[in-house]
């Protein structure tokens, strides 16, 4: 008698495995955030702008980039095949991670922002030699959160797509990537054409339109990254 509901069982198992992997990753993120904010408070007597939100964004992009380099590697993918799983589920779980992790990390940075604000208020009451100035309204916060979120998701999905191809076709991707970078450096027309394309897509647009365009780039990246993972063998 063969097992049924295999896809759901496999998905639960795989997501549990990624939950275990990212538990320590999240701990590192919180540790870095706490360290950055505490050290800033100790070093500077002022807070002109939110350390938590800025540090959260940079930290989130940096750590997710590292996570993507790791989870797309052959060694890491092979470990996932120690239990029943197919390539669609692997890709789906990666997409879930790319969509969920930035949200959790940004929400954490918002919690740090609240703590930072509380600390600044407390310092203001107890010390006359301190000032802080950050003005965040509800709408600017929501817009900033949404655009930051989709920008991180977009960058992470592009990194995911790149490394999904790179680990499977190192030579081809290196040659294409190297040619692209050299063309950007040495071919003025190419560089200008590429810059104007980027500017045309992302510059001077409303936050809503920017969100949609970044979401479209994200979807394309997911679709392109799916191809090499779908075809890969577990050696």
């Amino acid at each position, binding site marked *: *008698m*063969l*097992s*049924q*509901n*295999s*896809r759901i*069982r*496999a998905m*639960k*198992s795989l997501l*549990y*495995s990624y939950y*275990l*992997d990212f538990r320590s990753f999240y701990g590192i993120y919180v540790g870095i955030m706490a360290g950055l904010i505490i050290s800033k408070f100790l070093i500077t007597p002022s807070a002109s702008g939110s350390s938590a939100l800025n540090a959260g964004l940079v930290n989130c992009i940096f750590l997710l980039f590292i996570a993507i380099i790791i989870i797309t590697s052959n060694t890491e993918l*092979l*470990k996932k*095949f*120690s*239990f*029943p*799983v*197919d*390539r*669609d*589920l692997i890709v789906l779980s990666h997409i879930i991670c790319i969509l969920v992790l930035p949200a959790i990390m940004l929400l954490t940075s918002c919690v740090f922002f609240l703590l930072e604000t509380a600390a600044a208020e407390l310092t203001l009451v107890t010390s006359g030699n301190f000032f802080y100035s950050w003005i965040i309204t509800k709408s600017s916060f929501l817009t900033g959160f949404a655009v930051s979120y989709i920008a991180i998701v977009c960058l992470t999905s592009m990194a995911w797509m790149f490394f999904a191809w790179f680990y499977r076709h190192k030579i081809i991707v290196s040659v294409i990537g190297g040619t692209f970078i050299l063309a950007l450096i040495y071919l003025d027309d190419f560089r200008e054409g590429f810059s104007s394309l980027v500017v045309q897509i992302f510059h001077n647009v409303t936050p809503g339109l920017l969100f949609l365009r970044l979401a479209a780039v994200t979807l394309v990246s997911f679709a392109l990254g799916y191809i090499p993972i*779908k075809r890969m*063998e*577990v*050696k």
Partner: protein
Amino acid sequence: MNVVILQDLVKRFGNKKALDDISLDLQENCIVGLIGRNGAGKTTLLRTLAGYLRPTEGKVLVFGENPFDNIRVLSNVILMDDERYNPSASLWDLIDRAALSYSRFDKELAIKLLNYFNIPVKAKIKKLSKGMKTLFSLVIALISRSPLTMLDEPTLGLDAAHRKEFLSLLLKEYSSYPRTFIVSSHLISELEGMMEQVVLIDNGRMVFHKAIEDVQSYALYLTGHKKVLEELEGRHNIIYREQMGEMMVFGVVNDLPDEELRRLESLGVEISAMGVQDVCVNLTRPDKGGVLDVIAK
């Protein structure tokens, strides 16, 4: 029902043929020994059946479907492979994952067995010795109760006592929850008692697929005077020969009629059955002579 059907299976890695034209049918609920030298293609065959590798040519069917990237098939297949577990994962987490992955996995029994083998369930994989890793993988593989359970070198790193206990556990599991086992191993003599069929492969090619009884009676050792035995050459398939002065030992495929065996016995030739291990070793012996020939040169 056939659990595994292979038709003209070829698997290439670059220019190297790891599996060459293998055709094989395996029935459900039997223990199959997959025998071959190092590099014969055993692991490649198991990984192809486990859906890790895509065949270059030919057809692979497991439970009637192609296993590559097929979760319906893979949920019913387990390949024991301790090198694939995340070294940073704790045994407890891996047991939880196994319980989520396999519908028949008995978590309580798995923990009892690990406790019995003195393997700490809270330890991480990287902290275990080779033997402990093997035991842990065996427990996961056996207790998953997958309809197709494949064990790749299951006794590697185990001491004699643990090897014996593994065999008892395997047979107990097999009798309680019948399923198809494919066991690849070098320790043929230890596994001989439990194997029902033997698949012998050499250099990626299948040499034979036979019932264990047929392998046990496949060949004979004939020990006698050189002059008596030399007359057999050309008439019978000799798979082993060794000369010690005027005495010779021949390993021959057992197609000798009873009257010829009686005649040889009357000429002072000692006849004994060739064990399964020796059959497998002699049939896959390279043509370049033995290791002692290297020293002699």
